């Protein structure tokens, strides 16, 4: 995992260096003498060899210094930390909805495969795969936000709330619901199909025959033997789920004007606020790596065949 993060940081550093302009090009008055700019460059170390620059960059990173956002005129660290929690809550809510939808649907679909219910659920998963998230999110926003007015249409909390108060928390949740539901309705289809296939697969395993030969009734065969064995690979799927979430938040936060990291990311790209973009890419990368690690840890906890070394 450590080598992965180092590789990631090098890649991002290279990416940052390849972007047009540098920390000075945006700041400086075009009337200033180019020689002065050059002197300033020299002074800031921008003409040093790349590995020295990389070393300084990593050093700053470790001290929590991600540079300055030229657009917001504030440290990137501060800018991101304002939004980090919003995105975390949105992701958590999406994950919860994803599993609330996926587990019962996957179980019904897998247990009664080829039934009418299964066909309906499979139809939904195909639709989900085919529908682009940003279009679906727009439709949801229009329908339940504007048309019916059931949900707020933007922001992460209603203005003028006392932070920490009960009403504040409720308003936060209320703002989370529609984006989280929209995202999970699309994101869940992969998990539904995965679970369905796992159950169909486990159903015909030999140890299921063993359970039936013992005289175990069907409910017990399913609850004790089939589901336990098919839910397990879902844990392995978790890391992938986190990667999907990151992609999802970028679109959903933008569409719902939800002040999170995904929205910030897209905004910073359009505004060419590169120090923010590189910092976010780094964070997203680390989140994906942590997600994979988390999958491994969960798997080793629930599967006796895998032990943490």
């Amino acid at each position: 995992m450590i080598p992965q993060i180092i590789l990631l940081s090098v890649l991002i550093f290279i990416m940052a260096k390849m972007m047009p302009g540098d920390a000075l090009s945006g700041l400086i008055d075009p009337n200033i003498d180019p020689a002065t700019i050059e002197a300033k460059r020299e002074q800031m170390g921008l003409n040093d060899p790349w590995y020295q620059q990389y070393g300084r960059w990593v050093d700053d990173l470790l001290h929590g210094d991600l540079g300055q956002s030229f657009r917001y005129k504030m440290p990137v660290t501060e800018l991101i930390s304002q939004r980090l929690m919003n995105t975390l809550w949105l992701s958590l809510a999406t994950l919860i909805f994803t599993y609330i939808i996926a587990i019962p649907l996957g179980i019904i679909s897998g247990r009664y495969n080829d039934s009418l219910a299964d066909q309906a659920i499979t139809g939904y998963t195909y639709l989900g795969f085919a529908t682009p998230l940003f279009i679906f999110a727009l439709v949801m926003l229009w329908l339940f936000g504007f048309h019916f007015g059931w949900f707020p249409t933007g922001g992460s909390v209603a203005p003028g709330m006392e932070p920490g108060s009960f009403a504040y928390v409720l308003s936060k949740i209320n703002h989370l619901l529609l984006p989280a539901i929209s995202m999970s309705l699309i994101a869940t289809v992969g998990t539904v199909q995965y679970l369905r296939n796992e159950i169909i697969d486990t159903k015909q395993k030999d140890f299921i025959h063993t359970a039936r030969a013992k005289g175990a009734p069907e409910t017990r065969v399913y609850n004790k033997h089939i589901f336990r064995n098919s839910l397990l690979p879902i844990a392995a799927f978790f890391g992938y789920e986190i990667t999907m979430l990151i992609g999802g938040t970028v679109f959903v936060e933008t569409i719902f004007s939800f002040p999170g990291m995904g929205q910030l990311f897209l905004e910073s790209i359009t505004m060419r606020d590169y120090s923010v973009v590189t910092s976010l890419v780094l964070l997203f990368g680390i989140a994906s790596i942590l997600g994979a690690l988390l999958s491994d840890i969960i798997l080793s906890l629930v599967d006796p065949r895998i032990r943490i070394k």
Partner: protein
Amino acid sequence: MTEELLKVQHLKTSFRIKDDYYAAVDDVTLTLNKNEVLAIVGESGCGKSALAFSIMGLHTKAKIEGNILYKDQDLANMSLAKLNKLRGKDLGMIFQDPLTALNPLMEVGEQIGEVLMLHNKNMSKTKRVEKVIELLNKVGIPRAAHTFSQFPHELSGGMRQRVVIAMAIANDPEVLVADEPTTALDATIQSQILDLIKELKDGSQAGIILITHDLGVVAEMADRVAVMYAGQIVEIADVHTLFDHPLHPYTRSLLNSIPNAEREGEKLHVIQGIVPALQKLPRKGCRFSARIPWIDASEHEENPELHEVAPGHFVRCTCYKNFHFPDESKEAAHHGIS
């Protein structure tokens, strides 16, 4: 003296492939007596497992016709709830592949305990653990208390098969169906497992259906033998008769195909070809005719039935009378086998 335990009558088990049903077990009739080992032999794909699964009611999608009578109850036409009272209690099953027959996420002791719990609702937990350990000892697992809390992947194939056996015999079943219990194991472990099954039978007087394709196992274990080919029983007799006076050409070719030291170097009479796939099986006439082309078509029986040629000795087809193995030279000329 002989007490009938299980009577299978005209059993036909068909699987649905595309839109048609194809019988993998086709009109099988046999009887299992108390305190006997009935071996069922036949090559891969002839329907041995399909027969065993039918007896245990383990096919979830197959069409089952005919009767399987156990103590005047018909297992083939019984509610699942009723069947579940018999499975694991009166009927035990040992599976072909011990590596996959155990739940990978459950402790071995818990898996054996499950079958006790299902049929003895009043047994206390401590009593159950005691009984599981007793069973583990009985099937020859060293350090039973330690093995109790191990997971299947921590055990060798032979040990896992012992666990499967412990599960099958936990409630002293009257009928034990063993589907190639040693095929997946290596030779030394094989004989240990067979000895164990024999010991258990002598202790319990159960009737055992032993499925195998190993004639050595048959000679060692069986009281009676049924030879199966393409879903049908082609010959059934007690083990001595079958080995000494085999009548059906298929049985004879099977017997001829056992390699042994004396005949080493000699040509083996392996009948050419394999069991046809279910869809391709001829449903009329003798299923075997395609594989013994050296017999003239006029000599085949049109729809061979099981004939009782001597008490307890049944053969499907009576044209064995005209049957003879060709000379080695002639056979070789026919098939080019060596």
